[in-house]
């Protein structure tokens, strides 16, 4: 910012802008504080039954208990590991498949109906099969995670490839470029923004996949805690796990936004 040669109006304008963004951030934090406060208050006053709704203090206490008996980070670690591995498999494999489909027009046409059907199929329907094939360990959850995310990765990436400016493709062809060189010099860099969007969608889907996987079969993880808490009516545990999930999912999204800023600078 060059404040030295700014007019007074401009400084005023900047001040106004800054004040507005401060206000918005305050409102954001305020909303959360008010929500938690009202929740706690209603629970304390027994207006709502904390046995069913839990309460912020109970959640904090549960986190403390989990931390003290040493299982907090085990559960978080396991779910994170499943989500990350599933996410990476989905993104890398999905991207590779999209590249192959892009390179062959016929392959693209042949596989299209299958991809569309797989996309609309609710993946949880495959739960029993996945357990039988992969057992009740991490591998079946990772498989589920990858399965949920990969189809969208393929479709989004391919759409990104196909929406590259036709004039630029003509230009490359006129220079005598082969399809391979068009892919590496033009299509891949040009579709970078769509890749980042794909990553964002894939993060959300990977969380769905891993938690869903843990619902179906697991012995640890945040999804397991939620199911277990529900079964034994420990709703504090359910709320706590959900709360931790919110933080983790937000954090992962934040990392991708950071990558986006780095890449599109």
């Amino acid at each position: 910012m060059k404040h030295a040669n700014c007019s007074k109006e401009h400084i005023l304008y900047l001040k106004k802008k800054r004040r507005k963004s401060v206000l918005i951030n305050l409102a954001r934090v305020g909303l959360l504080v008010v929500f938690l406060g009202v929740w706690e208050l209603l629970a304390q006053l027994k207006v709502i039954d904390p046995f069913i709704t839990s309460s912020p203090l109970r959640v904090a206490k549960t986190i403390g208990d989990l931390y003290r008996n040493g299982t907090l980070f085990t559960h978080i670690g396991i779910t994170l590991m499943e989500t990350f591995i599933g996410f990476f498999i989905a993104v890398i494999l999905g991207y590779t498949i999209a590249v192959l489909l892009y390179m062959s027009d016929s392959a693209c046409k042949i596989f299209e109906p299958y991809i569309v059907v797989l996309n609309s199929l609710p993946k949880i329907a495959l739960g029993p099969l996945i357990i039988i094939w992969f057992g009740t360990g991490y591998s079946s959850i990772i498989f589920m995670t990858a399965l949920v995310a990969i189809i969208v990765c393929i479709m989004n990436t391919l759409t990104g490839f196909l929406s590259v400016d036709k004039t630029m493709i003509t230009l490359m062809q006129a220079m005598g470029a082969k399809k391979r060189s068009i892919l590496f010099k033009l299509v891949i860099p040009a579709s970078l923004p769509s890749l980042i969007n794909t990553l964002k969608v894939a993060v959300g889907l990977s969380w769905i996949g891993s938690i869903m996987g843990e619902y179906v079969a697991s012995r640890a993880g945040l999804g397991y805690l939620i199911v277990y808490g529900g079964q034994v009516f420990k709703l504090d545990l359910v709320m706590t796990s959900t709360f931790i999930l919110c933080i983790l999912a937000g954090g992962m999204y934040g990392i991708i936004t950071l990558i986006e800023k780095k890449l599109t600078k």
Partner: protein
Amino acid sequence: MILSFNNVGYTYHTRDGETNAIEHMSFGVERGEFVAVIGPSGCGKTTILSLTAGLLKPSYGEIVRENAEFGYMLQRDALFPWRTVEANIFLPLEVKKRNTPEMRENALRLAEKYGLKDFLKKKPNELSGGMRQRVALIRTLAAQPDILLLDEPFSALDYQTRLKVCDDVQGIIKSEKKTAILVTHDMSEAIALSDKVIVLSARPATVVAEHKIDFGGNSPKSRRECPKFSETFEILRSELGL
């Protein structure tokens, strides 16, 4: 004769049927000549360039090219926004696998000669429309083509920029002594820029007339000011049936 079309025809095939784009077309281009091809819109002008560059094969007839390299300049500059100006200029060298230090140096020399020195490290979106078109021309010249194929390269620009870029591009092409084929639907542009104007009919396109333009000196500006300009304009207009 660096290029000649001898009785060339071209037919497009689509699922809905076939379209005769070009029929019995013959014309020639001399080395160093600036040829403008004009015709009603949709008459297959771009097809002529694609045939010339060998991107399409004629349905009949033959196209004789003297051992020549082509450089293509399109309606829109199509600069890659993620590359710097410099990297955009090097693109054809990379694609044609001639990314040698000499070729790069030559490309940079061209860029400096035509006023792009201070912009080399910038991204295309920091440049004005006219400047971007100049970068597109230097990119085309970087691979040292013998013939430049210009496909309405000014049509995306506003009128004032257009006049300026016209002068600019013509000046650069002349001083680099390149052969150029320009397709356009703009009659005044054709007269102002070229040594020879080829007039096409509506589809299927064939050559209606050829005019040598030899008045008013070499710059587009002096051409436009010459009294014979409007005379020629009228002739072209009636030949195009407007």
